């Protein structure tokens, strides 16, 4: 599973509309979080996202970031 479900009911929307909303969402992530985290947010599974964040924390502590 890439992202935890918000609702277990699927909204009744044409595919083009769904894609358009995802595009807007992705554009917002790109603007706020950058390319790498956008990929992690949209394309990685929840487990991969946690692994990535654990790696980030480890890397930060090795470089003695606060």
């Amino acid at each position, binding site marked *: 599973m*890439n*992202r*935890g*479900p*918000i*609702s277990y*009911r*699927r*909204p*009744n*929307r044409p595919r083009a*509309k*769904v894609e*358009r*909303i*995802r595009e*807007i*969402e992705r*554009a*917002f*992530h790109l603007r*706020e*979080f950058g390319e790498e*985290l956008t990929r*992690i*947010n*949209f394309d990685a599974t*929840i487990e991969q*996202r*946690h692994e*990535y*964040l*654990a790696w*980030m*924390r480890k890397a930060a*502590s090795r470089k003695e970031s606060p």
Partner: protein
Amino acid sequence: VAAENVQQTYENLVASLRAEGAVCAITSGLACVYYGIAESTKDCDLLCHPQGFETLLRLIDSFQVEGTAAAYRGNVSPPLDVRWHAGGWTSHFEWPLKLDPLLLDVFGQPLRQFSPWERDLSGLYAGAHTVAAMKRTARDKDWPFVTSLGLRMIDAGDERGWLHLFHAETIIALQQDESCPEAIAAQRPALQLARKNDPRLSGALNAERKFWEELDRRRIHIMEQALRPYVSAVRARRSPTKLNLQEDHDLRLQCALEHLPTSPVRDHGAERLIEESRRSLVESGIIPQAGLDWLPDVRRYLTIA
């Protein structure tokens, strides 16, 4: 439990709590990661209905991470007790591991409640609506998460997502395909501007965000002032020998009964807090006097007993 997989550790705790009948859910940063918005935190914020506090305290006591038992964090944590949680206090625990402690913050209720959180869950996690409301803090870094959660809600057909959008371009782009329901727009003056394509939308969203930030800053200040005598009392009474969790809990309860007001925000007055925040935004020049019309009515979201 090993600390390597932090998320799994907390999920295990919540699953164990639920197995014993407690109503609880993981919220804040770890919930954002679950919903597809990576936040680099390994601290866990847990919503737990106060009826489950006794079970929670017992489980925290027995739940060891890498052989380390949990403890209340420092002298500042109020006791895990409904009397103080109903008034907006939170309790703080830690597993003091050698390299990096694991931190757990417990909320008996969300600080800003948009709907009953217990009815709005996704697996072991709080619903996105609750998480987005809790993220309206005085910290800059939290705000992109609010809008991101709102977008996910709209994508999933949950119209309440419109309540959480704070980026003008995103709202304008969304409006081309989706219409914000009248009842939702009525709750946010900024959304009413958006529906009319009013160029003041961006300013109104900024004013609304600054309002939430000011409310949070002032709430924290009120709580910190009220906490001081309690912290001094806990510090003075703590024995040099290490107390177990239950002994520490009893000591904190005694100190709280004597020194910690149950609901400082209620004592201060929720209406007064709101009015002071509005006035401060205008007096500091953050928003113009006319901008007060863009602020939503937040009274029903401040759930202070």
